[in-house]
C-alpha cells in the first residue's frame, strides 16, 4: 500500500481507534480518556493538513476494497471532500474540548465519547466516499452513532426525541438505499466524478432519472432538514449541548447537505441535472425551507429550539446555492457549508454556556446575561450577526455570493428570499442581543451552577471553544480573499465541477 492509499484510512482510523479504545475504558479513567480524545483529534488535524497540502499540489488520494463483485468500498480525497473533512476535523477538536468541560462529572462519559468519536468517523467516511455505496454505509453509521448521543440523558423526553430522530433518519435511509440500488441497476456501479456520470445515460427514460433523483434527495434531505422532512431537528434538541453542536454544525445536517452537493454535482452533473429540469424544483424547496425555518424560529422561546429552526433555514442556503445553475451560486453554497458550521457551532456553544453556568434555557430569561457573561455573549453576538449577514462576518460573504449567483442564474426571486430570511434572522436574533446587553439582570439567575472568578465567567473549557470559533467567523469574513480561506477553496471546487470551465469574479 502506498502512502496515498493509507492516508484516507488513517483519517478514518484517527477517530475510530480512539473511539473503540474509549468504549473499553472504565468510567474513572478520566485522564487517559481525555488524552485519547485529544490525541485522536490532533492526529486527525495533522493528517488533514497533509492531505490539504497534497490536494492543492494536485496529488490523488484513493483507496478501494471490493465488497461484492463490481461493488467497491472506496474513498477518494478531492477538493470537495477536503472542504468537509477540514471543517469537521477542526470543529471536532473544539467540540471535544467543549464536551470535556461540559460533561465534567456527568455519568457514562466513556459511552458518550466513544459514540462521539464514531460520529466523526462516520462523517469522515461520508466526506471521502468515492461512490454512493460507500456514502450510504457511512451515512447509516452516522444515524446509528448519533442515536445514543441524542438519548444520552436517558429521560423519557430524550427518548421521545431520539425515537423521532430515528424514525425520520431510518426512513430517509431506506429511501436513499432504494434510489442507490435503482441507479446502480440503471447505470452500473457509478463512481463520483467531476461533472457527473449520468450524462452518458441521456437515452434512459427521463421519469426514471427524475424518480431516482427524488428518492436520493429525499434520503439525504432528511438529514439536511429540508421542509417537510425537518421535524426531527427541533425535537432532537433534548440532547446535551455538545451533541447539538455536533448535529448542527459538524456532522448530521452537514452530511445531508454534503450529500446533496455530491448527488447534484458528481452523480447527475450540474448541467445534466439542469437539462432534466431538476434544479428549479430543488431551488423552490430550498427557498421554502429558508423562509419557513426563519419564520418558525421567531416564535420559539426555548433558546436551543430557536437555534434549531435557524439551522433548518440556514442549511438550505447551501441547497439553494447548489440549485442555482451557475458557478457563482455554487461557490456561495459551498462556502456556506463551512460558514454555517462555524457560526452555528458558536451559537450552540454559547447556548450551552448559558444553560450550564446560569441555568438559562429560554430567550425570556436572557435579560442582563451579557453583563454576567460578557465573553460568551460577545461570541454569541458575533455568531448571530454572522447569521444575519452583517458586514465583516463570514455570513456576509455567503450571502453576497448567493445573491450574485441568483442574479447570474436569472432567478431574481431567490434574492428576495435571501433578503426576507435576513430580515427574519434579525427579527429573531436582535431581541436576544438586546435582552442580553441592555436589559437589567434579574435578582437571581434560574440556576447558577458555576460562579464567576475574575474574568472567567465560566469554566475555561467552556469559554475557550466559542471564543475561538467566533474569531474564525470574523477571520473567514475579513480575510475571505486570502489564499487558504474557505472562499478560495470553494472557488477551486466550483472551477472543477463545471465542465465548460467556469469564470469567477
Amino acid at each position: 500500500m502506498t502512502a496515498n492509499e493509507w492516508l484516507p484510512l488513517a483519517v478514518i482510523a484517527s477517530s475510530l481507534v480512539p473511539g473503540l479504545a474509549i468504549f473499553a475504558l472504565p468510567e474513572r479513567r478520566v485522564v487517559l480518556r481525555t488524552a485519547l480524545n485529544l490525541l485522536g483529534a490532533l492526529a486527525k488535524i495533522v493528517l488533514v493538513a497533509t492531505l490539504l497540502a497534497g490536494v492543492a499540489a494536485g496529488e490523488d488520494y484513493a483507496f478501494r476494497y471490493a465488497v461484492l463483485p463490481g461493488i467497491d468500498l472506496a474513498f477518494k480525497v478531492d477538493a470537495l471532500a477536503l472542504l468537509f473533512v477540514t471543517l469537521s476535523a477542526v470543529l471536532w477538536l473544539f467540540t471535544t474540548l467543549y464536551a470535556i468541560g461540559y460533561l465534567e462529572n456527568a455519568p457514562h462519559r466513556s459511552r458518550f465519547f466513544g459514540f462521539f468519536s464514531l460520529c466523526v468517523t462516520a462523517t469522515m467516511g461520508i466526506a471521502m466516499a468515492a461512490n454512493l455505496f460507500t456514502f450510504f454505509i457511512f451515512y447509516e453509521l452516522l444515524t446509528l452513532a448519533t442515536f445514543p448521543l441524542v438519548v444520552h440523558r436517558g429521560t423519557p423526553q430524550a427518548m421521545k426525541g431520539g425515537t423521532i430522530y430515528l424514525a425520520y433518519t431510518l426512513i430517509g435511509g431506506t429511501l436513499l438505499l432504494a434510489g442507490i440500488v435503482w441507479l446502480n441497476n440503471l447505470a452500473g456501479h457509478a463512481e463520483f466524478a467531476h461533472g457527473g456520470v449520468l450524462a452518458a445515460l441521456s437515452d434512459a427514460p427521463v421519469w426514471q432519472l427524475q424518480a431516482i433523483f427524488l428518492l436520493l434527495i429525499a434520503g439525504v434531505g432528511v438529514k439536511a432538514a429540508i421542509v417537510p422532512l425537518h421535524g426531527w431537528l427541533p425535537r432532537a434538541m433534548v440532547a446535551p449541548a455538545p451533541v447539538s453542536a455536533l448535529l448542527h454544525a459538524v456532522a448530521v445536517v452537514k452530511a445531508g447537505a454534503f450529500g446533496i452537493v455530491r448527488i447534484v454535482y458528481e452523480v447527475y452533473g450540474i448541467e445534466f441535472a439542469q437539462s432534466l429540469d431538476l434544479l428549479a424544483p430543488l431551488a423552490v424547496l430550498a427557498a421554502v425551507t429558508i423562509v419557513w425555518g426563519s419564520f418558525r424560529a421567531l416564535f420559539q422561546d426555548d433558546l436551543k429550539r430557536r437555534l434549531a429552526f435557524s439551522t433548518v433555514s440556514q442549511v438550505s442556503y447551501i441547497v439553494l446555492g447548489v440549485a442555482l445553475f451557475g458557478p457563482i451560486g455554487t461557490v456561495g453554497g459551498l462556502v456556506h457549508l463551512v460558514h454555517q458550521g462555524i457560526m452555528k457551532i458558536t451559537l450552540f456553544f454559547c447556548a450551552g454556556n448559558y444553560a450550564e453556568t446560569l441555568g438559562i434555557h429560554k430567550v425570556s430569561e436572557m435579560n442582563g446575561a451579557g453583563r454576567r457573561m460578557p465573553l460568551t455573549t460577545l461570541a454569541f453576538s458575533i455568531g448571530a450577526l454572522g447569521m444575519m449577514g452583517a458586514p465583516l462576518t463570514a455570513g456576509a460573504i455567503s450571502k453576497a455570493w448567493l445573491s450574485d449567483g441568483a442574479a447570474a442564474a436569472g432567478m431574481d426571486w431567490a434574492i428576495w428570499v435571501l433578503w426576507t430570511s435576513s430580515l427574519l434572522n434579525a427579527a429573531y436574533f436582535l431581541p436576544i442581543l438586546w435582552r442580553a446587553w441592555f436589559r437589567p439582570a434579574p435578582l437571581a439567575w434560574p440556576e447558577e451552577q458555576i460562579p464567576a472568578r475574575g474574568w472567567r465567567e465560566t469554566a475555561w473549557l467552556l469559554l475557550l471553544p466559542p471564543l475561538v470559533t467566533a474569531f474564525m467567523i470574523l477571520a473567514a469574513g475579513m480575510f475571505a480573499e486570502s489564499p487558504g480561506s474557505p472562499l478560495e477553496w470553494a472557488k477551486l471546487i466550483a472551477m472543477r465541477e463545471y465542465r465548460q470551465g467556469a469564470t469567477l469574479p
Partner: protein
Amino acid sequence: MAEPLVWLILLPLAWATGAFLVPARGAWLALGGTAAQLWLAFQLAAKVGAGDTATHAVGGWGAPLGIDLTADGLTALLLILTQFVALPLFVYARAYFAEKSPAFWPLAGFLLAGMNALFLSADLFNIYVTLELVGLAAVGLVAMGGGAQQLAAALRYLFATLVGSGLYLLGVALIYGVYGTVAIETLTPLVAADTPRAVWFAAGLMLVGLMIKTALFPFHYWLPPAPGGAPAPVSALLSALVVKASFYLILRLWLGPFAPLVDVVAWLPALLGSAAIFWGSWRAIRAVRLKALVAWSTVAQLGYLFLIFPLLGSDQLALHAGGMQLVAHGLAKAAMFAAVGVLIQVTGRDTVADVAGVAARLPVTLFAFALAGVTLMGLPPSGGFLAKWLLIEAALVRGRWDMVVVILAGGLLAAVYVFRVLRQAFLLPPSGERRRVERRPVAMLEWTAFALAAASVLVGLRGMEIVRLLGAGA
C-alpha cells in the same frame, strides 16, 4: 485427515458418544471436536473453491448402489457457518450451564453430526435419515429443562418435525416408485416438465414438509414457543442453525431435481415469505417477552430467504443474496439469543420493559444485541446489508417492484423491534423501584455473544469470499 467429508460427520458422533460416557468432560470434548470440525470445514471450502470435486463414496460403494457424500460451494458455506456458530455457542453454553446440564453435550453432538451429514448427503433417503436425527436431537434439547413449559414446547416441536419429515418421506417413496432411484445426481436428468403426476405430488409433499420444518409462515406456529421455553444456547442453535438445514434442502431440490417443475409456483414461497416478514415483524413488535421478540424476528427473517425463489436465475444474484442472508442471520440470531440469555440471567426478568437501564450495567451485552440488530435491520456494513442489497438488485433486474417494497419495509419493521429494546435499555431505570438483587454478569457469556454479533457485522466485509464460494463446484 484425508477426507474432511467423512470426518465432519464422524467427529461430532465421536465426541457426542464421549460426552455421554464421561459427562464431566463433555464440554471440553465438544469444544475440541467442534474446533477441529471448523478447521475441516475450511479445508473443504478451500478444496471446493480450488475447483476440486469433493465426493466420497462411503465404504467404496458409489451411487446408485452405495451412499455418496458430496460437497459444492453452498455445502461448504453452510458447513463453515454451522461449525463457526456452534463453537462460540458451546463456549457460551459451558459458562451458561455451569456443569448443571450434562445432557446438552451429547445431544448437541448428535445435532451437529446430523446437520453435517444432511449438508453432505447426496441421496434423498439418506437426507431423510439425517433430517430425523437433527429433528430428534433438537426436540431433546428443547425438552432438556424438564419443566412443564419446556415439555409442552418440545411436544409441539416434535409434532411439527415429525409431520414435516413424514411428508418428506412419503414424497421420497413416491419418487422411488417412479424412478427406482433416490440419488440426486441420477434423478436430476430424469425429472422433466412432463413427468407423471406422482412426481409432481411427491415434489409438493417434500417441499411442504421441509417448509414446515423451516417454520415458513403459516407453518411457523411451533417456532416461537420452542425457543421461548428452552435455555438460551438451545434457542440460539435452533433459530440460527436448525431451521437453516431444511431451507438448504429446499434450495437444493429447487435448483436440482425439481428445477423443471417448480418454475410455475415460484411465486408461492415468495408470497409466503412476504407474509412471514410482515406477520413475524408485527408479532415481534408486539411481543412482551424478550425471547418471544427474538423468536418472532426469526420467523420474519426466514421470510427473506424465501423471497429469492422467483428471482433465481443465471445471474446468481438471488442465490448470493440467499447465501449471504443464511450466514448473516445465523450469526446475528445466535448472538441475539445469547445476549438475551445474559439479560435474563442478570436481571432475573424476561420482559422487554425490564431491560430499562441495562445500557449502563451491561454495555457489552447491549452492544452485542445492537450489532446483531444492525444485521437484522440490514444496515451497513453488515452481512444482512449485503443480503438486502443483492436481493433488491435481483428484484430490480426482474422488475419486481412489489418485492423491493417488501424488502425495504421489512428492514424498517426490524428497526422498530430492535430499537424497542435498545431505547428501553437506554432509559434510566425506574427510580421508585427498590434495587433488585441481581446476579453479576459472567464475562464469558457477554463476550461470546459480542463475538458472534461482531462477526455478523464484519462478515459484510468478506462478501467477495462468500460469493466466490457459492459459485464454486456448482
